[in-house]
């Protein structure tokens, strides 16, 4: 089943929507940035994939050359939920932005993910603002994965910083890592309060956020080695 593509909204409509309905706006598709604490860490990717609903449509996955070289390619066998992926391999960060804009104009896509390495000068406030407005107008979620990057000026509505934590213990094997845990910090948010959570994927593949104290109390920590 596919979500029906909504009609594009005008800027005035968007403004009034946001002014009147702040709760709904927080959940509507928009531009989100995820910064990886470590470039080779898989945690940010798992955190992102837990939030993409496969029922909404195929995902356009755009990556620049350095991201592919340094952190590898997506592996379909390892996806938590089966997802239809269309990969776009480009060379420059500018091409990533162009392809993302094209993809955000296509309402049948479930999400558009861009991977950009470092801090290219093209990825400035204007570029992110364009992506955010386009994502909101067409109702397609846009995600930017930033590796080896500084959180400079950006118009992304939510900005996360994600790192892997030691995994839960495996119920069957005391020496093996079990379900993953991530340290997720929302350091900028347009429609909600920033915060710090311990995130983990649910059994259905969705995302569950816990406050650190709750997480410590509720979940038995892995034995320290």
């Amino acid at each position, binding site marked *: 089943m596919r979500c029906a593509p909504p009609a594009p909204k005008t800027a005035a409509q968007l403004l009034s929507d946001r002014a009147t309905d702040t709760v709904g706006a927080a959940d509507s598709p928009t531009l989100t940035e995820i910064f990886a604490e470590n470039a*080779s860490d898989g945690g940010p990717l798992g955190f992102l994939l837990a939030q993409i609903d496969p029922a909404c449509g195929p995902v356009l996955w755009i990556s620049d050359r350095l991201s592919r070289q340094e952190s590898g390619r*997506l*592996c379909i*066998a390892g996806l938590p939920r089966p997802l239809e992926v269309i*990969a776009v391999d480009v060379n420059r960060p500018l091409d990533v932005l*162009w392809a993302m804009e094209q993809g955000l104009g296509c309402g049948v896509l479930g999400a558009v993910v861009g991977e950009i390495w470092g801090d290219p000068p093209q990825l400035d406030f204007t570029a992110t603002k364009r992506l955010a407005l386009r994502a909101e107008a067409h109702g397609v979620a846009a995600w930017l994965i930033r590796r080896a990057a500084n959180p400079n000026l950006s118009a992304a509505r939510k900005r996360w910083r994600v790192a892997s934590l*030691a995994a839960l213990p495996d119920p069957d094997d005391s020496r093996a890592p079990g379900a993953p845990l991530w340290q997720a910090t929302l350091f900028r948010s347009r429609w909600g309060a920033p915060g710090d959570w311990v995130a983990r994927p649910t059994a259905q593949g969705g995302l569950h956020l816990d406050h650190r104290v709750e997480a410590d109390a509720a979940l038995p920590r892995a034995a320290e*080695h």
Partner: protein
Amino acid sequence: MRHEDKLPVLLQTALSDPRQTGAQPVAPAWRAGTDMDRARQQGRGRAGVAAGAVALPTDGLPRDPLARRITALHFPTLAMDRYLRHRDRMGNPVPDDLPLALAVDGPHGPILHATNRAARLAGMRLGERVVDMRALCPDLQVEFADIAGDRAMLARLMLWCRRWCPWTALDGETGLVMDSTGSDHLWGGEAAMLRDIEEKFALMGLSCDLAIAPTHGAAWALSRHGGLRETCHGPELAQRMAPLPVAALRLAPDTVLLLQRLGLKTVGDLAAVPRRALARRFARAPLGQNPLMRLDQMMGRLAEPVQSPDDPPRFAVQSRLPEPVIDPDPHLPALAQELCAGLAAEGMGARRVTLTLYRTDGEVAALSVATARASRDAAHLLGLFEGRLERLDPGFGFDLITLEASVVEALDMVQTRIDGHVDGETELARLIDRLSARFGADRITRPALKDSHIPERRERWQSAMVPAAGTLAPPRRPRPLRLLDPPEEIRVLYAVPEGPPVQFTWRRLAHKVTRFAGPERIAPEWWADRPSARLRDYYRIETQHGRRYWLYREGLAGDGRGGPPRWFLHGVFA
């Protein structure tokens, strides 16, 4: 019909002041020689015309069955010629003294399908098994034949042969047949035409045998079993055919064997047998096993017209500009509209569109775009050229612009939704088109899953222009989210050689392994790998920073396949 409609407009534009018409689009015209127009006017294809010409005498006189002139072409070494040509083009020509053979799969292993001259001299025979022939000639080089490619090439040659006469058709796997009645005088007579055909094919690197005779059967027999570029006329037909072997009758091999056992070795022997006896013996045999019917076809007693398929539809429009222009942009929308109108009238959609710009100084520049689904939406097709026209060097300007749908597919009418939205699949295909036009079709990929144990072989990324492949069951063991391509070698400390790593150095950083799961052993695929390929033992590990990686050890100590085992980091888990 179209030409007459557009001509006054063209003339009018050409006669008006060029300075005023500089930005005005010139009305496009269909390229000359579109057979589509002709077919539409006549309402029937070439095959119908050819059949009618043979079957219906127009003036009421009895038809002379031997009045037509049929040319048969036989390419005895088509597969090998094509392979040698391919190697030449790749800059890797085959030496003349290297015995080379092309093989196809037989019931008991590969058998020889084509051989080159050196292999023939070494005694290689077609249809024999490769292993037997290798025993005779150990340095025989064997490649696999491309049967479908040969067939496609022959179909292209069939269309190309219409330069000599309009009715051409395929004739078996290695032959063509042309009805050259009334065409030979254009080439200076039959002998000159045959020489011309042979020369043109020789320039392409193809050797061919040719013959002209009044019937298809006779021409076939002469091209395979006759002399060099032989022509035969009606009166001497029976006399010329008599000494040919019965295999020249286009019969199945078992029927040829049967006739030889009956002592009928030549066509003349067969013709001398009373007709009634042959008819009784082969009453129910199909055409390929019926010597009497084949004999009648050869002698013209049974009509066998050349069934020439229609030309493939060709869609091309052009704008001949009165004055050279530097920027072709304003002329494109009208061209695209006209092309799409033509496509819509025929129920076709374009998969590949080529824009060709002719410069005044004779240079030609061509741009080509492809679409993931057949399309005849002018705005969409034009959008694919966006940003690519600027890179062309206009020189002193372009004076002729053509737009051609070079690959077309049938495309049915689709009802649009009442709110004007196109359906999701079309919208996605258009997005893929736009991205492919900008970055290249090989950059937009979809996973094509293959049933394999080796992780990197399981998923291959193939162009999104081809339809998506099927799905596979997910693997039972956990797989990483990212795969490094190629796997990166790491330096590892371990307690026991066959055990898990304790510490490893990757990208100049030391990682301590706190927890691990494994090993998961993945053996090499003996049907696809080299014999020296080593097995892999995969470990899913967690480091002291909480990151999870997928490592493997290639081989075992002392497995006799190289030195001490090496370690690689292959993937990253969430």
